[in-house]
């Protein structure tokens, strides 16, 4: 019997869902509200030198990559399975768009982060 590839996608979905449930609200508040408005955090908290140093540190680089990649794989997996509930009959094309899109964006994130150096 051919082994199913579902557990791989489901694991990425689960890991991304867990990570976004645990720290997602804080991340959104910091990057989208607190820093842009200078509310509770200084407005220059995410300025270029600081973010460059953070993204060049291996731990910072890994954190940014894991957040972006897992959020993408979580969301696209859920969207793919929700298409069925909307009466859209999914096939190979929908699967390619959802998982292929997540893969392409993950690779772009990896390339950008690697190009920043260590």
């Amino acid at each position, binding site marked *: 019997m051919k082994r199913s590839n579902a557990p791989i996608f489901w694991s990425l979905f689960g890991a*991304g869902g867990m990570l976004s*449930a*645990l*720290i997602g609200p804080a991340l959104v*508040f910091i990057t989208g509200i607190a820093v842009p408005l200078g509310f509770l955090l200084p407005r220059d908290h995410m300025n270029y030198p600081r973010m460059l140093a953070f993204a060049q540190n291996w731990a910072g680089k890994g954190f940014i990559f894991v957040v972006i990649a897992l959020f993408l794989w979580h969301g*696209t997996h859920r*969207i793919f399975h929700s298409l069925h*509930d909307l009466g859209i009959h999914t096939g190979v094309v929908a699967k390619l768009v959802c998982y292929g899109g997540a893969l392409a964006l993950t690779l772009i994130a990896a390339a950008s982060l690697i190009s920043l150096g260590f």
Partner: protein
Amino acid sequence: MSNRRPYVRPMDGWWWRSDPFFVRYMIREATSVIVVAYAVVLLWGAVRLAQGEAAYNGWLEALRSPLSVAFHALVLAVFLYHTWSWFSIMPKTMPLILASGRRLSPAVVTGTGVAVSAILCVVLFLLVLAMKP
């Protein structure tokens, strides 16, 4: 070419509206669109960071626009709902845990998850607050 013409039952995409349970289900599934959108915002920041200071400052400037702040307020609300819904379905998605021979109560699982999330969010915020250049 195959001559098969399988019958596909017509389906109304709004079937879930008449039952609050299914409405909650669809809202929970719809959070995924916002999670992807937020990941793309962060990805865009990483790409701009790699392109240099001017490009990155453009991204920071865009984050300060009222439209972006309003969007992130919506994203925050959706993420809070995601946190709650993720842990409220967790009793069904996780392996069975027995405590003194009895199944762990779903309320304990959900409550623990939400509490851990709240603690981690505060810790993350304090870590970021304490970060010195």
